């Protein structure tokens, strides 16, 4: 297997990020020392089951963790700027220009009482105030055309659009200021399969044309397999494996990734669900040792004693597991 050359600069870097939700019964550790980077022009998938902290990481990168959540530790570098240290004002200027969001494909991403032109115009005008009216209209129409939407969408309200069209409006909006990084939070959830393909294709087109880097959050492993360059697997607030998409799907190393891949349904064989829901430990009191010890089939005393660090096993392939590490060394 040929690995991509790793000389491409890193456009987004998350260093040692921890996010805690402070509740009356203790702090919930939603993200714990998360480390990863996104290279220029690549799409990285962030996968994991519901509640594992994927969206929390996305919100932390956007600096939009909602109370009672708080970023307790770490650095987030986007295009040479560290976001945690920015003031509210500096952050506002950086948002959307450097870092755009494609929200979940649900029905509520657009303001129901504003026309599409107003919502797109808002995003553009917030950062380019002196833009003339005619130029603005031209810009928006061009953006709509870029994502394959007809010009009449310009004057329409969100309720007049289908789910797929709304999501393409969101993509058009995300690329309005040509940001280096786009975060797509489950961009195709709540859409039917055909529309999912259209939206995914639109995202890929946009990426190819603009060379934008994307962090794509999702739990649809099949879709991820087709779209992303690298995958980061998250479990209970921790990254357990990060690696090239081929490696993750063909030769997953971490036991959790293996379970996840084995659980992808296929038509050839009906297989039992390997990953069972609801067995995650209490996120307020993570066990000492490996985060996955309670569900891991290969758990040893070493795993219960200390937490395995996320280590680079192969070029661009990181795993947090003692078993994998010792197997490699042997």
């Amino acid at each position, binding site marked *: 297997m040929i690995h991509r050359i790793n000389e491409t600069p890193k456009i987004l870097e998350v260093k040692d990020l921890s996010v805690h939700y402070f509740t009356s019964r203790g702090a919930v550790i939603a993200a714990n020392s998360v480390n990863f980077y996104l290279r220029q022009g690549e799409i990285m998938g962030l996968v994991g089951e519901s509640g594992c902290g994927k969206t929390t990481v996305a919100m932390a990168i*956007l600096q*939009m963790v*909602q*109370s009672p959540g708080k970023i307790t530790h770490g650095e987030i570098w986007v295009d040479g700027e560290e976001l945690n240290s920015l003031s509210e004002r500096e*952050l*506002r*200027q*950086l*948002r*959307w*220009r450097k870092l*755009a*969001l494609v*929200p*979940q494909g*649900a029905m*509520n*991403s*657009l*303001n*129901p*009482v*504003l026309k599409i032109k107003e919502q797109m115009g*808002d*995003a553009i005008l*917030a*950062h380019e105030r002196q833009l003339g009216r005619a130029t603005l209209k031209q810009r928006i129409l061009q953006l709509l055309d870029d994502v394959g939407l007809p010009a009449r969408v310009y004057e*329409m*309200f969100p*309720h*007049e659009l289908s789910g797929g069209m709304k999501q393409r409006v*969101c993509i058009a*909006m995300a690329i309005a200021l040509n940001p280096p990084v786009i975060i797509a939070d489950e961009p195709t959830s709540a859409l039917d399969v055909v529309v999912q393909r259209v939206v995914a294709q639109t995202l890929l087109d946009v990426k190819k044309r603009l060379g934008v880097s994307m962090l794509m959050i999702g739990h649809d492993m099949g879709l991820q397999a087709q779209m992303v360059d690298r995958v980061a697997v998250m479990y209970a607030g921790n990254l357990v494996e990060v690696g090239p998409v081929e490696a993750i799907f063909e030769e997953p190393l971490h036991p959790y990734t293996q379970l996840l891949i084995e659980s992808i349904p296929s038509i050839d064989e009906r297989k039992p669900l390997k990953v069972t829901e609801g067995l995650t430990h209490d996120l307020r009191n993570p066990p000492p040792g490996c985060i996955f010890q309670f569900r891991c089939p290969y758990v040893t005393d070493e795993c219960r004693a200390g937490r395995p660090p996320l280590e680079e096993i192969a070029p661009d392939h990181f795993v947090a597991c003692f078993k994998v590490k010792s197997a490699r060394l042997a």
Partner: protein
Amino acid sequence: MGGLTKQYVLTRFFMFVLTIWIGATAVFLIPRLAPGDPVTSMVMRMTEREGRVENAQELIAAWKERFGLNDPLYIQYFRYLGNLVRFDFGYSLANFPTTAWEMVRPALPWSVRLLAVALIFSFAIGNTVGALMGWRKTPSWLQNILPLSLTFTSIPYFMFGILLLYFIAFQLHLLPASGGYSRDVTPGWNLPYIRSVITYSILPLVSIVLTSMGGWALGMRGLMVGVNNEDYFLLAQAKGLSPARVFFRYGVRNAILPSLTALALGMGGLISGSMLVEYIFAYPGTGYTLYRAIITQDYTVMQTICNLMILITATSVFLLDLLYPLIDPRITFRRSQM
């Protein structure tokens, strides 16, 4: 799509007429379902006052004839509707030669003025307080202070009026205690009179506004908290819009919609007056007139006030219906889907 369609306007107008008709019919029927009749009870009152009335029976019969109470009910009903269209509400039963309209008309500007101002203030202040309470980005010191402004809500407004009356009017002598204007000014378009009207309205106004704004605030807070969690609200923040723009265009703009309906319904109250507050401050409004009408069993005056209430409520709901598609573009669309 969006905006007003002809069918939508016609449907709304039909509803407007229907509301008034049903309301007026109810106002016509309810007193007639009650036992006794106004003429007999009036003559009985006269008998009580004067000891004895000559030819009481003939008097009752003559007045029943005069007021058309001997005609069949449907004739009375159609005559009533016909008179209503011409804004003829009949004679006041308690003050005979005076018409009901003449009894109500002088009180109208007082109540409408007082309550319209009170409604505007409590709507504006209440919704602002509520929206700020429900917004995540409101500074925490403000979050802590705002609920204090709602403490008055739990006091009944007439109790609060009495407290104001006692402390501000009688103890501190800061503001007049009762009436609509000072006796030493002449009514008209002159400055002393206008100033006097304003001074005299402050206490009733304050007691209504402070006790009613909490309702708006609590409703608005709930709606705003909901909007805070909407995806479009988060997206607006991610776009890097200024907090004020997010607050108004994406927050308040959506959360205010149900409050506007409540506002239109509240308009009917402008005519009925705020009976207890007007009574406490002896304010010459329709609430006070209604109170007088009730204790003197003056049915026609009561009916007049009820009919005016129905008219104003229906009108403001109709106007709101016409405005709503412009405020919330989803409305017309939904109707046409049906």
